[in-house]
């Protein structure tokens, strides 16, 4: 159920159509997908992920309704040129920050300690 190209799915992590939507947004946020790029066809993506083609169609419909992708008749499905990539980056950054803050709050760590730890790990990663 995993795939090397950023499409990995978890069967116990909510509906598959939602997860496919999240994967598309993540790939856009980190630049693996860009506005104007063509997405695989629903059938090919379904075969790659071993999921029902209707599930992928459902995911694509939601992304289209959200203004992320568009279907061009006879050509395929593309990322919209005006896809809100900045918003997606912002949302993913915020979600990651919330996960970190929730984790360290459980330890009873205050803001100063949390930021110091973050900076330390950040700098260590940069030095490598």
């Amino acid at each position, binding site marked *: 159920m995993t795939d090397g190209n950023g499409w990995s799915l978890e069967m116990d992590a909510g509906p598959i159509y939602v997860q496919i939507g999240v994967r598309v947004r993540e790939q856009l946020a980190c630049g693996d997908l860009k506005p104007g790029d063509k997405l695989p066809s629903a059938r090919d993506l379904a075969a790659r992920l*071993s999921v029902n083609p209707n599930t992928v169609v459902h995911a694509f419909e939601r992304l289209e309704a959200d203004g992320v992708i568009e279907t061009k008749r006879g050509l395929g499905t593309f990322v919209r040129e005006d896809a809100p990539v900045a918003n997606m980056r912002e949302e993913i950054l915020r979600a990651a920050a919330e996960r970190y803050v929730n984790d360290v709050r459980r330890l009873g760590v205050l803001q100063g300690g949390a930021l110091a730890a973050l900076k330390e790990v950040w700098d260590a990663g940069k030095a490598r």
Partner: protein
Amino acid sequence: MLARLDNVTKRYVKNEGIRDLTLGFPAGEVVGVLGLNGSGKSTLLKLLAGLLFPTDGAVTVYDAWPRRNRAKLVFLGETDALWPWMTPREAEKFMAGLYSDFDRSRFNELLDALEVPRRKTKSMSRGERGRLRLAMALARNAKLYLLDEPLAGIDLLSREKILSSIVQEWHTDETILLSTHEVAEAEGLFERVIFLKDGRLALDAQAEALRQEGKSVVDAFREVLS
């Protein structure tokens, strides 16, 4: 409904295969038929194929006894009845002679996709024979595909190829019922799952609705059948 069972019971000499089962299958659904050994999965598929006759109740495919609509249904059973001398080429001739809906070019595409070697079945591995049997089944243009344990006893790579071919070949107006023990590998394919326990219906659910509740089909399987 493309196929249905109304209050169906199938009694064997010693035990009951299916007890008072009522189910309907609309066109265009991929259904996982799940349950432990002896839960009635094969009995259900054979009843729908017209290979078994119900003790009580009625089984219909397109509103008729399944055998009258044999041309519209495909049954892939668990038993490997391929002749040892048969090559894929001979299997093609055999199937084309037997079924007018057998699509020879689709069969050859499937042989390539499933990487079936062009040699006699007696020198094929179990996985290769399983892939050949699936190609023979999927190359027909039917409306109802009854696939009984197509993944059983087959290596991981063959199972992946089989699942991916089913996804590629499925037309949205066709109904597939697939029984399997490999719930984790196959669950993404199913829109609907039917759990059987001791011949009775234990759960009939939409797979995405289960996931909405944070459960995988595997989780639901454990919950319902343990």
